[in-house]
């Protein structure tokens, strides 16, 4: 992996992601201010040396909130992508390997999940099981499953008819061995790129749920929650929206760069050219 950092987009993505992760970890040990303490006297202050990102309408420090909020956002998105990948990719690969009835049944089931508006169903889930970060994770994760299943199946179907698969079959390898040895490595790029996109969407979905009051519960801040609070104060305190918004943009950008770089590194053709 020593050569990996010579890949520019991987390096940039890695640095940004590491920075965000470090920020999330640091928030457990230290934040400039206590995010649960309301100081009404300092409310809606513009960015200043005392409060780099300004304060919100309760006088809480935005920088501290962005730091603490990153925990929720990242955890929700990461676990949701994990659920989607963990269940979706095997399902998709299975469908591609078997074809016929199993393929058909799995994909129609997929369509069924796709047919529900994701946010609406997430609202339903949180309405039944109550709001909270954990339920948000599960709700977002379930809707990631068909996305990964689709991608894995489409990628798998494109690889299966290749001659090297035929050669592997002629060498006596079964469906599982071929899937693990040949199909999965060849569609890893696709899945990784989809993973970074889904991660970004996961952060946005969490923001959306929190925005509706169904994600992380106050006083725990999350980026989505902060945007929700900011919307009515846009005219008087735009920094309340700008900084959590920027945090989302930077994180998503970092992950996309990381995904692109990783895809290049995993491809032996591109790697040798550098």
């Amino acid at each position, binding site marked *: 992996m020593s050569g990996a950092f010579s890949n520019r987009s991987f390096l940039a993505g890695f640095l940004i992601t590491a920075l965000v992760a470090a920020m999330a970890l640091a928030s457990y040990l230290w934040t400039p201010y206590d995010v649960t303490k309301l100081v009404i006297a300092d409310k809606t202050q513009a960015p200043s040396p005392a409060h780099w990102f300004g304060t919100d309408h309760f006088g809480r420090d935005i920088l501290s909130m962005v730091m603490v909020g990153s925990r929720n956002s990242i955890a929700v998105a990461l676990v949701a992508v994990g659920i989607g990948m963990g269940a979706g990719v095997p399902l998709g690969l299975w469908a591609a390997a078997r074809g016929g009835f199993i393929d058909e049944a799995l994909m129609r089931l997929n369509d069924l999940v796709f047919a529900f508006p994701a946010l609406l169903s997430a609202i339903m889930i949180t309405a039944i099981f109550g709001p909270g970060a954990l339920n948000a994770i599960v709700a977002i994760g379930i809707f990631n499953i068909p996305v990964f299943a689709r991608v894995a199946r489409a990628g798998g179907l494109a690889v299966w008819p290749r*001659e*090297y698969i*035929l*050669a592997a079959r002629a060498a*006596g390898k079964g469906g599982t061995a071929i899937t693990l040895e040949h199909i999965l490595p060849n569609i890893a790029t696709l899945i990784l790129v989809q993973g970074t996109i889904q991660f970004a969407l996961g952060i946005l979905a969490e923001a959306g749920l929190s925005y509706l009051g169904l994600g992380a519960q106050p006083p725990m801040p999350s980026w989505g929650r902060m945007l929700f609070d900011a919307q009515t104060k846009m005219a008087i305190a735009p920094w309340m929206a700008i900084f959590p918004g920027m945090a989302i943009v930077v994180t998503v950008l970092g992950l996309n760069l990381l995904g692109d770089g990783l895809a290049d590194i995993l491809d032996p053709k591109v790697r040798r050219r550098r």
Partner: protein
Amino acid sequence: MSLLDIENLSLSIGETPILHEVNLSVGPGEILGLVGESGSGKSMTALTVMQLLPGAARASGRVIFDGIDILDASEEKMCALRGDAVGMVFQEPMTALNPVKTIGEQVAEGIRWHLRASRAEAEERAARILDRVGLPPQKFPLARYPHELSGGQRQRVVIAIACALDPKLLIADEPTTALDVVLQAQILDLLRDLVTENRMGLLLISHDLAVVTEMADRIAILRHGEVLETGDTARVLSEQVHPYTRQLAQASMHVPARRQAGTEADLPPPLTPPHKGERNEALPTSPSSLWGGVRGGGERSHDRSASIKDASPLLSVQSVSRLYPGRRTSLFSREAPTRAVDDVSFSMQAGRSMALVGRSGCGKSTLARLILALDRPSAGEISFLGRTVTGRSEAELKPARRNMQVVFQDPYGSFDPRHKAERLVAEPLHVLEKKPSPAERRDLVAEALAEVGLSQSDMDKYAHEFSGGQRQRLSIARAIITRPKLVIADEPVSALDVSIRAQILDLFADLNGRLGIAILFITHDLTVARAITDEVMVMHEGRIVERGRTSDVLDHPRSEAAKALVGAAPDLGRALAARLGEQD
């Protein structure tokens, strides 16, 4: 005055030089053959004339077409030229047509664009040119889609598009490489007729010296972006002044040095029970003897002649058919099923090499898949090493898989791009009863690589780091690593340049002779069949229509299908003789 003049053309893409000081000219009604191996810059020359070069390309020199300096012409001017005065035919008829547009629309497209003709006028003209290229509208309505046509018919459509506006110059880039010999002959005839009819200039690009000799008035030989020799086809090829020209010509007529006439004589006539008694050594079939086999040349050939006399055939195929269900015409009815393989029976002795020849789509590859147990026959039975293969589970197939391997046509597509050579070549070791340790595995791979003329240091390379010919060697190494009894080679040389092709054929002949591996060679190219096989089977529309010794069948074909194949096969010696005869 010539139609196209290329003077001192040099071209580089980024830092890589592609062409160096190329000088060529094509006159009206003249066919110039541009010959060279892949990567020699043939296609780039054609693209320069069309100004369709990739963005990073820089060209210098002069390219004058009909008084217009192409390198200076604006994109607008080029758009007016392309498809009107200059037409182009591409290699791959499967991808050169848009699958969602009818052939009528595609031919009419250029006519409407260049002549600003109405739809009706354009279609009338399209119908006329399609009729001319051999697709009469009564039989092939303009509303047909490309997928409803065969490869040869598609190539005719591509030619119709290129010739729709009576171009002054036609550029054909490997127009017949993707077609079988019979179709190739038809397409070449068509091109020749179009040239004489319209006094069109034709720049014919090919790696096949025989094709070019048959067609071209003048020939230019290109290597590493430089024209080595140019001039009258017959003179260039008969005098062979440049050593590379000689090398190319020799590679085209290459016949691997293999077994002497003596071996030929003691082969049993096909389909008769072999006589027993003289030598009764059994075939080494147990896995241990698979590895214990002595590698010495003498011992091996001794083994081989012994196994030929062995009673049971290595492979026997009994009235095997493979049907594909027909298209559904309504909810309850289907068209009659397609019989891809139709009641085929044959047997093959150990150590022999047999060719299965036929036109594309005749069922050769389907038959190969059936033998390899990658597909199940609809009827009939296949047995290998005395055991039935048909209908067995994957676990029961393991002994058969160990002794039966495959080499595919496309040296690019037959390797997983993400694995290193060691793992690629070691793949079939999976079927061995006893899994080799990593060290043993490395040794076996090294041995297989050495066997095909690759070095041990190649083990840690990825497939894309090898050239086409090296990849085909790698493919063969993979096929022989388990020391199989039978290797099925599906068009293993048709994607390769002539010189590399000669090397690969040598390698097959060597493996057959030295290691006693039986080879079933699937090909549409008779020179390949003649070069390295003892016996030949001719397949036509799913049936085997003729079978016999290679020389007998190829010199005196009896069936129509075989006659067509033999008649259409381009042959450098014959073509050159014809050219020289013309001149006298």
